[in-house]
């Protein structure tokens, strides 16, 4: 009986080829889009986390408690004194660490060599050219000039900020900031390098100076606002335990994991994931309404046929199965097309990606993806989408089929 019903279901689908195809395409579009967008988002998340780790957060950071409590306003005066002692302890514990200073400042450029006079508010980052490499990959992204040398009044800029200022290697730059004691300080430095990092935040906002030079300028010898740490993420608990043991005797200091440091990013990424899921849910609902409508039309158009089958003694269960198989087949056809579409979408994303760098220069979308948004192959998503497509198709056909079967045989035959 099942074989016969399946054959009949297939023939019915072929009878309305165009309608079957349109409905299947609606499902295919939903599934294809889901696979593609999911692939792009997962890839963006992976890349963002990698870039955050490599350029912004490391595995974690030590700051003073006072700094952390008001970190949004970058309170440079709440710095870690004698950071070298702490760095030595971390090194003794086998942990890679790099001190950094973050301070607010105003970057000023003057006409000649710049096209016009101008200024902008920036966050200055003082880095130790030797130690920084143990935690971050900034040095590897140098696209022009050279990296910083200790104690020199020099600066390297992110590529987009350099482009915005029309700055180049060798150009002078003036930075006005405040020392930790509250005095105004003016730094005259030379641009020695331009970095082009895969992290858009670095390219958009990066203004780096040598740590020792900045310590001197900000009147905080041996001080650092942050000590970033890099360790193997497969052994987080053990490494965090080591750090916390080191900090036991320093109640003013506190360790924060990269997740804490990247709380804003994680919140944005989470919200985006939810927003995208909601949009995709709407796409699926539209596809589901399409199937439901197709099945409703199929039931109503074939009401007399349905009556005839019931008159001939076909049981309601078999008639339900007939329509469920039809819906399931539409779902399977749509899911196959959808997965193929998703694979094509994924292939394009993995191979070429979508280049949003033009927009990312000016807008922070939260993701730390600098150039092209790529995709990743996600077989689990493809398989689950295939089954979900087929199952949804059957589920949404339940209502129209039951509605059709509620009519008496005589009513069906009269249609």
């Amino acid at each position, binding site marked *: *009986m099942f074989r*016969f019903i399946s054959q*009949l279901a297939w*023939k*019915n689908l*072929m*009878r309305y080829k165009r309608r079957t195809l349109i409905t299947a395409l609606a499902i295919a579009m939903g599934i294809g889009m889901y696979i593609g967008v999911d692939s792009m988002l997962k890839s963006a998340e992976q890349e963002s986390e990698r870039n955050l780790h490599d350029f912004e957060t490391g595995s974690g950071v030590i700051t003073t408690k006072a700094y952390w409590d008001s970190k949004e306003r970058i309170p440079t005066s709440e710095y870690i004194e004698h950071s070298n002692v702490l760095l030595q302890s971390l090194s003794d514990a086998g942990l890679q660490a790099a001190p950094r200073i973050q301070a607010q400042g105003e970057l000023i450029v003057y006409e000649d060599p710049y096209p016009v006079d101008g200024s902008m508010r920036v966050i200055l980052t003082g880095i130790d050219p030797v130690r920084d490499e143990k935690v971050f990959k900034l040095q590897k992204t140098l696209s022009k000039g050279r990296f910083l040398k200790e104690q020199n009044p020099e600066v390297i800029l992110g590529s987009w900020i350099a482009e915005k200022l029309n700055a180049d290697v060798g150009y002078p730059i003036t930075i006005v900031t405040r020392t930790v004691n509250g005095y105004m300080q003016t730094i005259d430095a030379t641009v020695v390098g331009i970095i082009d990092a895969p992290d858009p935040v670095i390219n958009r906002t990066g203004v780096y100076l040598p740590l020792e030079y900045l310590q001197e300028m900000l009147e905080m010898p041996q001080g650092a606002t942050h000590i970033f740490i890099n360790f193997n993420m497969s052994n987080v608990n053990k490494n965090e335990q080591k750090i916390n043991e080191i900090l036991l005797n320093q109640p003013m200091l506190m360790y924060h994991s990269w997740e804490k440091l990247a709380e804003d990013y994680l919140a944005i990424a989470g919200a985006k994931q939810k927003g995208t899921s909601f949009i995709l849910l709407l796409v699926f609902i539209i596809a589901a309404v399409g199937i439901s409508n197709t099945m409703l039309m199929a039931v109503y158009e074939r009401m*007399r*046929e349905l*009556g*005839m*089958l*019931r*008159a*001939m*003694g*076909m*049981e*309601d269960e078999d008639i339900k199965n007939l329509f469920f198989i039809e819906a399931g087949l539409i779902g399977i056809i749509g899911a196959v097309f959808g997965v193929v579409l998703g694979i094509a979408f994924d292939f394009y994303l993995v191979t070429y990606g979508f280049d949003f760098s033009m927009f990312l220069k000016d807008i922070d979308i939260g993701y730390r993806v600098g150039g092209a948004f790529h995709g990743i192959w996600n077989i689990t998503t493809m398989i689950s989408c295939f089954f979900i497509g087929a199952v949804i198709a059957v589920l949404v056909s339940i209502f129209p089929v039951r509605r059709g079967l509620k009519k*008496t*045989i*005589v009513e069906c*035959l009269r249609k």
Partner: protein
Amino acid sequence: MITIDALVKTYREGESEVHALRGVSLEIKPGEFTAIAGPSGSGKTTLLNIIGLLDDADSGKILIDGRDIQTFSGKERARFRREKLGFVFQTFNLIPVLTAYENVALALNLLQISAKEIESRTIAILHEVGLKGAENRLPSKLSGGQQQRVAIARALVKRPLLVLADEPTANLDSVTGEEIMKLMLELNKKHGTTFIFSTHDPMVMLYATRLIKLHDGLIVSDERR
């Protein structure tokens, strides 16, 4: 043997009531070729629908082979229709995606008999109704008369106790209609299957061996020929 006793059926149409059957009683012997005649609204189709377990009577009894079919559950009704009853409708009601062969075989597929038997019985009945060579045609490629022949073959292939035909010639021209009546009569004689058909066509009535006339839900004449 079909025994119908005091069958009553009333429909509601908005605020008003339509008395389709007002106490119909009759007996039909096995092998009879019975026409239920009468004008539109006389209750012919309602009577056939109730006998065919497609509709329920408000009161009264129908015994087929000694069994009170009104007491059947939904599943028993479906089974009874599947095994014991054949239907022929004025609009043929063939499944458009199935060929003539498949439409006829459908009735046997529901009985779940062997593929071999389905094939032999289907081919035999199609040849018997004059559709040799048209087995693989879809209904859309058949004339009205041929479609009704397929419907008759579908009704008879399962060797039913009773074939119910609701105005089987109403959608056919007079020549084709007459051919269909001849065919039905021939099959009735050959297989001994009981036929009950409704009509208001005097030509069709001529073929009946028993003519029951209905008017306003009541039997007004019952004539054996």
